[in-house]
């Protein structure tokens, strides 16, 4: 099994290197006097960051002429594994603490990870809210068609956490593999309610209605970020982390439904 992963990681690394290699000049490229050509900064980020980070990437490129930001959006676990196995990345944004620990534990981080956003669960219901859901208590209603994430995936783990903290037992009709599957069932009107992240409700626009509930604070999802010491453009990686943490970055994240870093 390790050998398999090594081969895969090598392939990924080779690919990233070939992408980076042709564009990157020696470390001095950050200086304004660097010759023409582009510098590429590579950011590995949790899939949930796709919208916000793409926006911030444009901002970064605007303020850093000659620099291109390349993103690798995937599940945090996949990304952490790739980094540990030698993938060339300059910054890593994880959707949970466990996967960040994987990277820091391997001694690959440059400095301490920074918390940059939080995410909480929210109840998604069809726009007409047929079951009349008003809050967490209503989710235990008899006959309610509630759809949640499976405990094995992060949003499901968060759901279980809230259940334990509030000493409630939900009886969902389905435990989906992904947030998008939960949303789809609510959007189709098959489910009366679904538990997803606030950002997901935000992204779904008016196809679903979001109902916030206080109990969601029991399972706050912490998104943290770190620049990577061995990254070909580690300095730029650090600058991108700074951008995310800046007022401008936080504004973009808040607009997408993320909570402020605690």
């Amino acid at each position, binding site marked *: 099994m390790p050998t398999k992963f090594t081969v895969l990681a090598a392939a990924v690394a080779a690919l990233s290197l070939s992408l980076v290699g042709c564009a990157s000049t020696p470390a001095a490229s950050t200086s304004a006097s660097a010759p023409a050509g582009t510098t590429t900064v590579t950011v590995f980020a949790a899939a949930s960051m796709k919208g916000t980070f793409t926006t911030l990437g444009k901002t970064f490129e605007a303020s850093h002429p000659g620099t291109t930001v390349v993103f690798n959006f995937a599940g945090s676990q996949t990304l952490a594994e790739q980094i540990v196995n030698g993938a060339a990345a300059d910054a890593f944004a994880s959707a949970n603490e466990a996967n960040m620990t994987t990277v820091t534990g391997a001694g690959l981080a440059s400095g301490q990870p920074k918390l940059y956003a939080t995410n909480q669960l929210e109840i998604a219901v069809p726009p007409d809210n047929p079951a009349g859901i008003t809050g967490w208590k209503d989710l235990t209603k008899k006959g309610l*068609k509630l759809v949640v994430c499976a405990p*094995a*995936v992060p949003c499901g783990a968060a759901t279980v956490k809230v259940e334990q903290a509030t000493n409630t037992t939900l009886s969902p*009709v389905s435990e989906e*593999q992904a947030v998008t599957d939960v949303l789809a069932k609510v959007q*189709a009107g098959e*489910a009366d309610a679904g538990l997803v992240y606030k950002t997901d409700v935000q992204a779904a626009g008016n196809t679903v209605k979001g109902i916030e509930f206080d109990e969601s604070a029991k399972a706050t999802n912490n998104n943290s970020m770190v620049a990577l010491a061995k990254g070909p453009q580690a300095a730029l990686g650090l600058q991108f982390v700074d951008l995310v943490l800046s007022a401008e970055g936080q504004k973009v994240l808040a607009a997408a439904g993320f909570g402020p870093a605690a």
Partner: protein
Amino acid sequence: MGRGSVMGRTYAGLPRWLYVSAAFGALLVILPLFALTLRLDWSRFFELITSESSVAALQLSLQTSVASTVVCVLLGVPLAMVLARDRFAGQALLRSVVLLPLVLPPVVGGIALLYTFGRRGLLGPAMDVLGVQIAFSTIAVVLAQTFVALPFLVVSLEGTLRTVGHRYELVAATLGARPGTVVWRVTLPLVMPGLASAAVLSFARALGEFGATITFAGSLQGVTRTLPLEIYLQRVTDPDAAIALSLVLVVVAVVVTVVTARIAERGAR
């Protein structure tokens, strides 16, 4: 043994390059399966496939696949007979439509089923009146599996019916057998080997069904989470379990294929 040696003596008359291509084709199928067994953690294999969730998924998969195979036979045999024996306007169109799930991505099938049998689907209100709720139930799984497996039965059985031909049925009719009697006493016995292999094919397809199920039926242990859904879920948290379960599915599929081949061989004799 004797047959093998006879086959060995027969001149195949194929060019060499054909064997090279054929070998690549075979490898394309064999290699991934081999790779799967390499990745398997044999020391935990038994523990992994006998975990509560695995057993529940396997049990549910077998039950729903058997159920959908039965439904496929009940609906598909008449459909195949009508398509093979009668001639009517729109027949070619009907055949194409019935076979559509063969080429359709299963997810599309799931969405279509949702808009038909879902709460807000075409038949939703009518079923509400009857007090039937299909979504998120095991029935939804069976429905999804039947949807994708039915064409296998129909297309395979229609071929058998055409091969067997209409003539025995006409003879039976002139001997005084009513149409119903002809179906039970002549047509079905004649196509039985073909029907059996068609049913096994449908069973195999139902067993592997994933896309339509996850879209239409949801995923809940013991109710709607069949083996493929369990594998997909485990892949995230416990890849070893996913691999072990995949192997179980492969073994079941191999057994099914071998059984089909045997039946077909017997029917050909």
